[in-house]
């Protein structure tokens, strides 16, 4: 495929930039405040941060505003912005066991240590449009918050506790077995081009920044039989985890908390032979923000990518990892919208020559045998007004 540089569109591009801005603001509604977006579009921003691989809620809100709510574009902008900053710190490994839990459930066990905590979820509600929000006012919000707060005795609130992990119970009972040993190198795919087979660290990093819909599609394909992994949720937890770094003086410092979603997906693992005891293995999912679909599907694909003997797309590292990065996929798709005049002209020219040759050949045959009718003339009028297409 060949490319040539062209010019002449600068003014049109500038005008298009103004026009898209015009469409954003032409109704002259009040400017959307970033604080509003950050608070009321929490889940959209969580998704953008995860796919942008950049935890920065304030910039997630700004990106969302800038692109009129297009999540893929917003994630693209975040990832580009991230590239302008220097990496100064590496955190200590997150400790999800000491998470400030906002939600944690298990679909494998009814009784889990600390209990099932539904947390902030719409999973158990009907997906009916809430017309009350049409007329939502500040008074409504204040009244709701007052009523919500009144349910707790502010003088004696309960202590904050942490929760034991479900997988620790399975492990203690000897039901969990590690999958066969594999490459344990810690690779950073933002610094080192990924090669296949990729170490598990690279796979987990790529899945953590994958586009939610992309890994949902492949995770779903595996659950439907194309990949051999149909797990249950051992534990799904959402909450805040501490981030700590080493400062220039060498001291371990707390620098803040980030919201993450963690999924531990239980699957039955392959056994060596018919007589071997079956055991369970875990597929692991972890991503920025509250994004349960993504964490669950990451866990499914983590296992699917370690499943031997299947040849479904969900088992293929390159297929899964290269095609689920939303920024890469959108970028490549978007490039189709850029001018391809030269390459298309080349193809068009070849096609015309081939058609001419075929016509000539048929004409020759027609002269020797009159049974074959003449092909109709091509409708040249279609291209007549466009010099580029007239060849």
């Amino acid at each position, binding site marked *: 495929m060949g490319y040539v540089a062209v010019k002449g569109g600068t003014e049109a591009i500038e005008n298009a930039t103004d026009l898209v801005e015009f469409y954003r603001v032409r109704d002259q509604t009040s400017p959307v405040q970033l604080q509003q977006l950050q608070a009321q579009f929490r889940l959209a921003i969580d998704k953008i941060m*995860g796919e942008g*691989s950049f*935890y*920065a*809620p304030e910039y997630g809100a700004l990106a969302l505003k800038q692109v009129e709510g297009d999540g893929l574009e917003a994630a693209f902008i975040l990832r580009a912005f*991230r590239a302008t*900053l*220097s*990496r*100064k*710190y590496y*955190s200590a*490994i*997150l400790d999800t*066991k000491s998470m*400030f839990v*906002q*939600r944690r459930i298990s679909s494998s066990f*009814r009784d889990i240590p600390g*209990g*099932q*905590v*539904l*947390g902030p979820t719409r999973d158990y509600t009907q997906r009916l449009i809430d017309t009350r929000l049409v007329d939502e006012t500040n008074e409504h919000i204040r009244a709701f918050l007052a009523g*919500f707060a009144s*349910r*707790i005795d*502010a003088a004696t*609130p*309960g*202590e*904050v*506790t942490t929760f034991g992990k479900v*997988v620790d119970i399975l*492990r203690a009972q000897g039901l*969990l077995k590690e*999958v066969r040993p594999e490459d*344990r190198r*810690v690779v*950073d*795919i933002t610094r080192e081009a990924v090669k296949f087979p990729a170490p598990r*660290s690279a796979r*987990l*990093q790529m899945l*953590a920044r994958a586009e939610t819909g992309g890994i949902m599609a492949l995770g779903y394909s595996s659950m439907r039989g194309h990949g051999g992994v149909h797990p249950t949720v051992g534990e799904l937890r959402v909450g805040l985890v501490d*981030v700590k*770094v080493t*400062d220039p*003086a060498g001291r371990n*410092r*707390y*620098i*803040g908390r*980030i919201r993450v979603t963690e999924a*531990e997906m239980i699957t039955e693992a392959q056994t060596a032979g018919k007589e071997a005891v079956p055991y369970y*293995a*875990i597929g*692991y999912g972890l991503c*920025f923000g509250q994004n349960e679909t993504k964490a669950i599907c990451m866990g499914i694909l*983590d296992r699917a990518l370690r499943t031997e003997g299947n040849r479904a797309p969900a088992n293929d590292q390159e297929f899964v990892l290269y095609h689920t990065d939303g920024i890469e996929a959108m970028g490549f798709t978007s490039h189709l919208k850029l001018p391809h005049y030269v390459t298309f002209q080349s193809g068009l020219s070849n096609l015309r020559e081939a058609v001419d040759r075929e016509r000539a050949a048929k004409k020759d045959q027609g002269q020797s045998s009159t049974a074959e009718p003449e092909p109709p003339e091509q409708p040249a009028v279609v291209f007549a007004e466009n010099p580029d297409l007239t060849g």
Partner: protein
Amino acid sequence: MAPDRDYVLCECSLEALKTFVSDQLLPYYQVNLTKAPATCLTMVRAEDSVENQEFYLGEALTTECEVEVNGQAGYGICLGDEPDRAYCLATVDALFAAGDARLPTVEAFLAAQWAAIQQRERLEFSQIMRTKVDFKLMEQG
């Protein structure tokens, strides 16, 4: 449990922190800004919970700042685009490094903020725990 100073300073009200530093600390010290607050990145490390396979989860926006008080360096680091908080963190860090006489004032501020943070978290957690499922078998009604 003794409060972690950085935890309190990162989680407390920014307005309260700025007011405290500007009213209670800056009039008494010469704070030299050796590295102005600037944003950077922290790569967040994680590991899976069964095989402890380490991997990189993604990067987090971070602000860092460096000051000097009485010849003692102080470092302020926090998540987000938070230049004021990073400056306050660095100033308090330098004061603790210097072992200054006004530390009791700082400690009183930290204690008050710690209590406020704990109360806020307990209230939130209490609301969260109201969503805990109380399973009953069908025949239990």
